[in-house]
């Protein structure tokens, strides 16, 4: 089902429920309204948790914000149509500011901070008597509606709740499940790799938190007008915890899950009404049982079960037969400009707590060439790459630059902009995104650079399509990395960096863990990239592979530069042989040269 039909479905369901309200008797209407406004706040928490991994216990603060703001506006005669955007903007801004700090904390600690937010909100509501009525609460004046041209009565309020829910689900479908949401998911599943393709986790976390807060405020508007009375107890931590329960039970990040989660926390106690004082009991048991048997929450668990049943297709490992380096070169040529700058590192040192990981190393990668960096385990190859990609700070360096740009002062996420990208030893693909989505997310990051270099204008989807075709990933383009063999994941990792439009690519162990066929495929792709003018830095253990594709080879050992030269020189370099095979170079030479 595509995005448009999903959106239409949401509108359709919303409209149908709104119509249904007219036929229901009063109390059922109220239950519908309750499910509607609770589903909005569950949706907000669930979307945030599902797409960014941030779990918030403090969202009732935003719900309260929406509720009290709309009550105050109604009191002053402002129409509800004005209250909606104002509440969203206000809650969204506060949420954005709070979200900026999310990345500093682990999931649980940020959970505590949001708990503190909830408590702070309760304190404020309890003491700001003029606006909130303090702990005694305030009755809400019915709001005027511009569309209806009159005050909302209780029946209208129910419809309002349903419409607000429809709006919330629609916005979430469009924004959170569109390109922006893909970014959030990318960051959630691989923060480091996301940074390497130019995403900014802090900013994206903040915007996700802000979005989610804005959605939550809609729930408050629904509560204000359908309940008609606001009291701090209704927005306390207890309710915030219930939203977490609903999120987990329904399944984090799922729209249908949010609806079911809301129904769960409204309807389960409703079922237990006839047994007074037992709603807690029933609610608790239902929560525990659901999670024991549907571990990932209702919707994802059922979804997974259905998928298991239908899936039999097994993706094939890529092989070089299907790949053609000339075709790849052609595709790559349309995606990124040829390299024009030299990547250079001179006299670089890195220390971790007094331990020298690198000292005095360096290398030069002229535009369009390929350089191999090899060395035994512990040589410092990965550390070197992490300095180049900005994840580690060099303790000292004479120069680390790409052309005129000093890399040491650039943030990791800014390297894409000057044309430097990297891949990862373990591929580090975005676990929650399909390959197509992954390429599209990366393509958006590369758009500016492609434009600046006068490459043909393409949408993200077009870029993704080209990469899929060029790397022969058509059969697996709509699958997630977890379902794919490692070989395909590694190919996709290269595809991802190509989509960002960079001209200098550092590959971290591109051959590690691959079989012969997969290695051949990577080799073909690298040849294609070279032919398209990409500068390539290959860091790998697979000596033979590196030698085969590199113009020059650099060897590190124990954090120092051991040798540097043409592949053939390195192959017979006594120090290199010693490094790999120890002092018994006789044996080793046999091994290397046989």
């Amino acid at each position: 089902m595509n995005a448009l039909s999903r959106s239409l479905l949401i509108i359709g369901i919303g409209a149908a429920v709104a119509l249904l309200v007219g036929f229901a008797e009063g109390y059922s209407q109220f239950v519908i309204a309750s499910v509607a406004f609770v589903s909005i706040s569950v949706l907000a928490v669930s979307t945030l948790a599902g797409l960014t991994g941030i779990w918030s216990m403090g969202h009732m603060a935003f719900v309260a914000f929406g509720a009290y703001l709309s009550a105050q506006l109604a009191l002053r005669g402002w129409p509800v149509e004005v209250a909606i955007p104002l509440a969203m903007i206000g809650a969204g801004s506060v949420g954005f500011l709070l979200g900026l700090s999310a990345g500093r904390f682990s999931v649980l600690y940020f959970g505590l901070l949001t708990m503190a937010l909830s408590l702070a909100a309760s304190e404020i509501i309890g003491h700001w008597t003029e606006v909130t009525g303090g702990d005694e609460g305030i009755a809400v004046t019915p709001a005027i509606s511009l569309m209806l041209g009159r005050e909302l009565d209780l029946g209208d309020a129910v419809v309002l709740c349903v419409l607000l829910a429809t709006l919330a689900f629609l916005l979430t479908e469009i924004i959170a499940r569109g390109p922006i949401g893909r970014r959030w998911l990318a960051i959630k599943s691989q923060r480091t790799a996301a940074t390497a393709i130019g995403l900014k986790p802090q900013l994206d976390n903040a915007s996700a938190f802000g979005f989610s807060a804005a959605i939550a405020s809609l729930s408050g508007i629904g509560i204000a007008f359908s309940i008609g009375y606001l009291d701090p107890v209704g927005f306390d931590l207890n309710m915030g915890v219930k939203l977490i329960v609903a999120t987990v039970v329904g399944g984090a990040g799922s729209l249908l899950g949010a609806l079911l989660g809301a129904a769960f926390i409204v309807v389960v106690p409703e079922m237990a009404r006839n047994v007074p004082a037992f709603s807690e009991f029933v609610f608790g048991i239902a929560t525990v049982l659901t999670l024991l048997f549907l571990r990932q929450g209702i919707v994802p668990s059922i979804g997974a079960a259905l998928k298991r049943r239908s899936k039999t297709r097994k993706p094939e490992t890529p092989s070089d037969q299907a790949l053609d380096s000339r075709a790849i070169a052609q595709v790559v040529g349309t995606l990124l400009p040829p390299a024009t700058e030299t990547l250079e590192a001179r006299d670089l040192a890195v220390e971790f707590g007094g331990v020298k990981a690198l000292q005095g190393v360096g290398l030069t990668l002229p535009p369009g060439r390929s350089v191999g960096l090899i060395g035994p385990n512990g040589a410092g190859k990965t550390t070197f790459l992490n300095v180049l990609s900005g994840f580690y700070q060099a303790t000292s360096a004479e120069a680390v630059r790409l052309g005129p740009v000093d890399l040491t002062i650039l943030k990791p996420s800014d390297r894409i902009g000057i044309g430097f990208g990297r891949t990862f030893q373990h591929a580090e693909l975005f676990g929650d995104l399909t390959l197509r989505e992954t390429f599209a997310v990366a393509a958006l990051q590369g758009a500016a650079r492609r434009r600046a270099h006068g490459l043909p204008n393409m949408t993200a989807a077009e870029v993704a399509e080209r990469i899929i075709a060029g790397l022969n990933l058509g059969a697996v383009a709509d699958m997630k990395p977890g379902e794919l063999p490692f070989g395909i994941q590694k190919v996709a990792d290269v595809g991802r960096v190509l989509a960002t439009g960079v001209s200098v690519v550092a590959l971290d162990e591109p051959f590690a863990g691959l079989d012969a066929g997969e290695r051949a495929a990577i080799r073909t792709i690298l040849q294609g990239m070279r032919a398209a003018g990409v500068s390539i830095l290959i860091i790998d253990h697979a000596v033979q592979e590196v030698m085969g594709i590199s113009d020059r080879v650099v060897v590190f050992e124990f954090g120092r530069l051991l040798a540097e030269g043409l592949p053939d020189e390195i192959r017979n370099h006594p120090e290199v042989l010693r490094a790999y095979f120890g002092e018994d170079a006789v044996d080793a030479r046999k091994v290397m040269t046989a």
Partner: protein
Amino acid sequence: MKHLQYGLAALVLTANLAMAPARADGPGVTADTITLGSWSALTGPFAVYGVPGVAGQTAFYGKLNAEGGINGRKIRVITEDHAYNPQQAVAAARKLVNRDKVLAIQGAYGTGPSAAAFPYLQQEGAPFVMPYAGALDWYEPPRPLIVGAQTLLDYQARAVGRWAGKDGHKNVAVVHAAVAAYEKVASNVGPGVKSAIPDATVTMVPVKLGTTDYAPIALELAGKTPDAVVFIGTMQELVALAKELKQQKVKTSLYTYGGNVANDLITLGGEAVEGLRSVSLTLPVNSDAPAVAAYREALAKFAPNEKPDYGSLLTYALAMVTAEAIRNAGEPLTRESLMTGFNTLKDFDTGIIGKVTVTPERHLGTTEVIPVEIKGGQWATAGTFVDALSNW
């Protein structure tokens, strides 16, 4: 698959809720039953008050029904839990009025939660009678559909203040929970003290509601050396304060108001609360007055899980007032005639609380309290019913 079924069951249930047919019987009255609605805190921290409150009326209506009901009709009370959450009280109100079609809401517990439901009740024209709660604005000015007989906490506070003054305490500290509802009530203590001793010093000491550790407060009071401390807050906190005052050897007299006149206070407070004085709305539960004896018997029979205590005795008496009003209302029994039934109560004596008189201009049926104190580990009367608003 089993798990899927649970989910489906929940969905089907939601659908059923939405489609349930409305019953066509009038508002809660049939040939043989009268259905009343009520709400209370049956869960959460306030269940300690809410549950006994329900037990009292259960005992009264149980006894009444066993004796044949009112004009051949049995009384049925549907009680909903709101866990002291006003939003849940609104939901309860909607269910009771809209689905259960109750005649009236009576004996409802919780001031804030009940107030939250008023706009809805008013829209539906449902009477709200004899609540186990109350605030000044419920009765002043009188609202046509609200009638009660629980002397307001504000009046109790004034009365206890006056008592402290009459006892000769010139320097009085009022320790109160720092939320608006309690603050308002506590503000009546000062005028009460001053009505007896015009130049008395009254200091307010706000404490966060839910405080368990009263050591800092006791130490603060030790510095102020008040002659008397009037406590306006929950029982658990009163116990904590009393114990801490005793420990820190703060020599002072402790006063409180009706909500805390429970046997639990003695159980929990032990020696620390000996000599504590309070105004009460009811006679002590161990009183040998006939009505109180009948209450104890009914409670043992119809709510055997609850031991006799202040809360259930009060709601028992309030239910007695409701029953009297239903009798007064005569036939046909409608919401209008019920309100008339209340409005014609004159000096109705439950034998438990102060005499109840309701008129269209006066919807709070009584403003009387009775002074009580803890003597030898038991509540004992220290006088007779007095009007809390008078200078008794």
